């Protein structure tokens, strides 16, 4: 899924803390001292983020592997 597709689906998610739908936003994700900005759905109220399964097991796992072998 591309960030745009996440964007289309973000309204499907509701933050239970703030009762607000998630919106796309730039979030820094980091590993072993390297930080990357990523577009992720998050709550405009409390800042709670959502990392979808295919991102966690796909791109993020790949980058983890890459950084571990550096």
């Amino acid at each position, binding site marked *: 899924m591309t960030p745009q597709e996440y964007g289309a689906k973000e309204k*499907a*998610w*509701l*933050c*239970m*803390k703030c009762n607000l739908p*998630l919106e796309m936003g730039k*979030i*820094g*994700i*980091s*590993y*072993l001292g390297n*930080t990357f900005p990523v577009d*992720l759905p*998050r*709550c405009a*109220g*409390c*800042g*709670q*983020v*959502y*990392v979808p*399964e295919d991102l*966690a*097991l796909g791109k*993020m*796992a790949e*980058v*983890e*592997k890459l950084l*571990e*072998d*550096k």
Partner: protein
Amino acid sequence: MEKDELLKLENRCIQEQPPNCAAACPVHVDARAMMAEAARGNFVEAAKIFRKTVPFPGIVSRICDQPCRTLCKRKEAGEPLAVAAIERACLDYAAGLSEKIAVLPKKEKRVGVVGGGLSGLTAAFDLAKKGYAVVVFEKGPHLGGSLWNFPEEKLPGKIIAEDLQVLERVGVEVRLNTTVGKDISFEALREDFDAVYVAAGAESPDVFGLETDAGGRIVVDSATLAAGREGVFAGGGIRLAVGERSPIRSISDGRIAAISIDRFAQKVSLTASRGGEGPVPTRLYTSTEGVEPLAATPISRPQEGYSRDEAALEASRCLQCQCLECVKVCEYLNSFRAYPKKYVRQIYNNLSIVMGHRQANKLINSCSLCGLCAEVCPDDLHMGLVCRKARETLVSQGKMPPSAHDFPLRDMLFSNGEKCAFARRQPGTDQSRFLFFPGCQLAASAPEHVKSAYTLLTRKLSGGVGFMSRCCGAPADWSGRTELFQSTGEDFLALWRDLGSPRLILACSTCYAIFKTHFPDVPIVSVWEMLDSLGLPESVKVEKREAIAVHDACATRHESAIQESVRNILRRLGYEIEELPLSRDKTECCGYGGLMFFANPELAKSVIRRRCEESPRDYLAYCAMCRDYFAFAGKRTLHLFDLMFGKPTDEAALRKGPVYSQRRENRVRLKNSMLREQWGETTAEAQGYETIRLKIPDAVQQLMEERLILVEDLQQVIEAAERTGYKLLKRDEDHFIAHHKPSSVTYWVEYSPSGDGFVIHNAYSHRMEIAEDVKP
């Protein structure tokens, strides 16, 4: 790893040593490579290989005395290869192959060669190619010397003439009918030329004033062929003893002399690094075990030599000598597609890297450390020791990939934490002669066997048998965490001393190896040796049973007493024993050793599969992890305790080992129930997140196992989400999703409430950290 250590290790792997044929050949014809091409009918390629090292191939293929054949490994299963006949066929069927001869720019230095036989002409050819002006003095009417003594049918004059044409092509000047010492003095020659090679042949009546031995042969330095006078070298029949003389030795001498003369002319050391010329010893080992004997291929038309098909057939008898003894028996070494010499270099480079990718991390972390390689290696090279040392280095450099061993290390900490670990004296005693130490994986896999074994031991042994539930520290040792291993060991030692330093009775082969290696002051005995001497439990029904194949735990590789006790117990139980092809000191690892399963699960699965296919019989394991891994792959496997305390039923043989969460749960329950039953102690109730009830469908359970996610990870996520309210609602399915990062891993759980608990729909994790700025 230091550079000299690397070189030492590399040197112990003999895979790149030359095969016997090339080592025995004075000019090192790569017969193995030539045979490989010829066997496929690639005669042009084969001929190129031959011509690369032999200046006069047509001649040599007809008259070579073939020292290669005396050492050819094929003779252990048939006759040695017909090397020269194949060489001849390669030349015949590569007709028209005309290779360009590269000649270096002309030099001013001049070299005189005395004698136009094989040795002199080889030196002349080699030196002319290097750009020297070479003049050959031949006393007879044509070049070739003693070559003309061979009968025409063996060595046709046409072949001699054709082969010697190359001399013209490289610009060698020839003076026929010129006898040095008569038509021109040796002194004049010496003055006229910068260097002289004396190769006047075995029959030469003249030694040109050079020093000779008792047999009248010119004395030379055997490495350089220097003949005692500056700039004068001698070789071939004039310096070789009768038994040493041969065409290929003459050629070899010519080549050695050419190297010496080149060095002399360039005023560099004659002697530096000259080990590899002429026949050399080789350390290559090649097993001929199981090689089907094959006789030499007959030549149907001797006058014409081998036909194409005959030559290819004969070449196909070549064993393509190589060692690979370790690679043949180890799936790990095989899976990285090379051999230890290369691996050691890759590991060294990996550890020395400053920037860029460390491509050998996986290589380093995938080894089971089992040591089978060292058992089969002709030079005892132990890749496990190399890999373990490399892991320690990676950890100390801060470069160990965190994901490789995180899960088993946390499992170890759990086993040694409050929930599982405990140590007590035998109830009603105030001293402990023994201490039963079942190990974390037996407690995880079959806690009921731990209890039965303990009961049996306390009944049969006097002096007090204490009990200790802990992990021996193997995951820390295997993963190169020296400090963690040391602190784990110190914790153990304190508890052990508190109990009066009793003798350990160990049920796990890995624990045994760990204690034996790292705690030499702690007396140990394997539970199998102990039970072998104490006898079977009275409840055991002994009856005649089918044969069972024993899988020795790799940690017992050098513990033949334990292996023997296991077999004694089996025989007493009524079993016949089948020995697997690789057993006892040559046994294989089940895939758990060295944490292979966590660093490289795909490899571990193929290791397990390969081991399971070695016999159709039921397997007998005496290590809980071996049993569970084989059963996981669908192989009927029984643990020795299954036979002593249970029944060898289908259910027992096929029982899948517990999933990771259950393994932890089993250890906790073992502690609680033993403390209650044996010592009458009340135990801690589950509290906090542990009380959250989860329903986990099988499919999700399986995903969790693959993703190394535990039930308690889910409980912690849900507890945090429900307590703080930080969770998301997936509107279309009415599922909650929440995440939590208890330490280094972030866990995500999709769930919904159900009754007094929750149903889990999905779970996943990642290690990357989210810079999440949650506002309370």
